[in-house]
């Protein structure tokens, strides 16, 4: 018998499972869809409604607080550039999606990492799942997301959460495991409860690593949100996609440049919080 003739219908099975889920869990998907949708709308409005200059001023202030006046100035100028390229609305929409997706990815990923750090069996189980989530081509997530949630921003955010969550869980686990065992023991030896040791000793000491994980989550979320733009999530992804389909290099470039500006801003801000955390713990 030739191995090529054997056809294991994994694709069929996945189809069947997705069908079953859509039929039986429709109430759950609708609920998630409603909650996510209103979250996204609210944040989008908050970013798009004020005059661009006001939003830019706020972003520049954040930049100043996180780093220094140079970065603040860079932020003001580069976001100003986005406005002048006519990409402001799209950029703020993308930013809203990135923020919602990364906050939820962090809220899911960090606790998973905490459990994994404390439980060897859970860790062994979680690791291959995370590997799978991270190496599966990001496009593939869009298919079930669209099936469950239809076209639009919600499936984009769901796919983004799945795709960007792994480093949050992974680096949280790593950070917690790296905390000096003797220091944890010192917490224990004086009668602290496990919860107190976690919040007062382990998490503060793991914070630089956890922040590095959060930084990666945000960067992955940005890349995925752009891809999701292709399937109706809107924002800068849609702009880039329009540029591609019309062979309009200029439009594609403007969209792409705006993505880069967002990426630099998000990376530098979260990176700064990470190094602030580490300067405190390594003192």
């Amino acid at each position, binding site marked *: 018998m030739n191995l090529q003739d054997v056809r294991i219908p994994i694709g069929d099975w996945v189809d069947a499972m997705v069908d079953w889920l859509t039929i039986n869990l429709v109430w759950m998907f609708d609920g998630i869809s409603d909650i996510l949708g209103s979250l996204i709308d609210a944040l989008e409005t908050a970013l798009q409604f004020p005059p661009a200059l006001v939003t830019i001023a706020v972003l520049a202030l954040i930049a100043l607080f996180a780093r220094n006046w140079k970065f603040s100035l860079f932020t003001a100028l580069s976001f100003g550039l986005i406005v002048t390229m006519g990409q402001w609305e799209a950029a703020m929409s993308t930013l809203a999606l990135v923020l919602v997706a990364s906050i939820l990815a962090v809220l899911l990923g960090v606790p998973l990492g905490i459990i994994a750090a404390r439980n060897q069996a859970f860790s062994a189980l979680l690791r291959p799942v995370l590997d799978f989530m991270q190496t599966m081509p990001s496009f593939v997530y869009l298919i079930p997301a669209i099936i469950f949630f239809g076209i639009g921003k919600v499936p984009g955010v769901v796919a983004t959460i799945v795709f960007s969550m792994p480093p949050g869980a992974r680096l949280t686990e790593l950070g917690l495991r790296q905390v000096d065992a003797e220091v944890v023991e010192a917490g224990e030896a*004086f009668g*602290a409860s496990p919860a107190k040791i976690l919040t007062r000793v382990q998490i503060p000491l793991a914070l630089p690593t956890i922040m590095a994980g959060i930084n990666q989550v945000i960067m992955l979320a940005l890349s995925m949100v752009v891809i999701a733009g292709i399937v109706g999530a809107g924002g800068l992804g849609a702009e880039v996609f329009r540029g591609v389909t019309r062979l309009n290099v200029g439009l594609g470039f403007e969209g792409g440049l705006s993505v880069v500006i967002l990426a630099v801003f998000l990376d530098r801000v979260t990176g700064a919080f990470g190094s602030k955390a580490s300067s405190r713990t390594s003192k």
Partner: protein
Amino acid sequence: MSLIQVRDIHKVFGRKADKAVEMLKEGQDRESVEAATGTTPAVIDASFDVERGEIFVVMGLSGSGKSTLVRCLNLIHRPTSGQVVIDGIDIGTLSPAELRALRSEKISMVFQHFGLFPHRTVLDNAMWGLEVRQVPMNERRTRALEALRLVGLDGWEDSYPGELSGGMQQRVGLARALATDADILLMDEAFSALDPLIRSEMQEQLVNLQQELQKTIVFITHDLNEAMYLGDRIAMMKDGRIVQIGTAEEILQDPANDYVEAFVQDVDRSRVLTASAVMEEPIATILRREGPKAALKHMRERQITALFVVDPNRRLIGAALDDDVIAAVRSGSGKLDDILHYDVLTVSPDTPLVDLLIPAAESRLPLAVVEDGRLVGVIPRVTLLAALGGSHRDAMEDQNAAVATATPSTGVE
């Protein structure tokens, strides 16, 4: 009742721990149990008591199970079998909350690499045990500051551990342990990571603090000199088992087996042993009223060249030397008083041998060991030298000869 009672504890790491303990109890040796079960028996059948106010040292090479043993005392490691009784309570039976209360009130711990919280100030570190116990903030501060003062760190409370030297960091560790006012202090190689100079400074500080505070201390070390210096009693560990428990002198003078004997060979005896450990029965004595003729007779019979002169209560009066005695007999003097040397060098029973060397070199007589004015022993120079060389037991067997030859015959009048 002893404050800490450890009863037959085993601690085996690994999944078949219970099976391993069973095999160990059947008398199988550690290697074969390890091979058969794939476990690590870290502590095997340890039993001992620690008295209130005592410094109990656990001493052994790296990997001998000391850290594991000490962590069984506050159940950071739960013994695979056996009991730990603290202040009458079998702590294995406590609920998690009761165990935490015990740790925050009765037992505190000092760690080899200090185990300080790098993200908290010195003061916040020192307050940790009180914070855990939810002591009100004001009291927390006062008590932590007091503990920092005790260890000599006043003025450093706002620094971070990373800004301090190793010795100072360990003082923070000590302050954190003292601040909770726990009776029991577990110190796992607390000074091992420090430079030798800082280390002996810390040892002295601990001894001084102990005189003031009277804690019950279980001190772990792999350094025999440290063990001998600090320990009221010492437990010697080897491959998970306690092979001997005793005072420094007992272990030095009477090692339980070849292992301990080999171990203690290099120890600085002159600092550990005291006069009382090496002194001989004072047989070369004579009562003052007996007179020169009797003295000469004594000297001839025992073939010795000097006598300590005492009163009926064994109070030391002085010493008589052979040539003086002979001269007195020839001149017909009837009294010892005229020829007595009153400048006999005396030492107390708890003087370390190191402090006997100069007196022994300067004196023509054996050193007189005197307690409350009474002559309780003598130390001939040969005995002292033999004890420092580690062959004290041989010297004991020849004690008469030693006494006889102790006095140099070339003394200056």
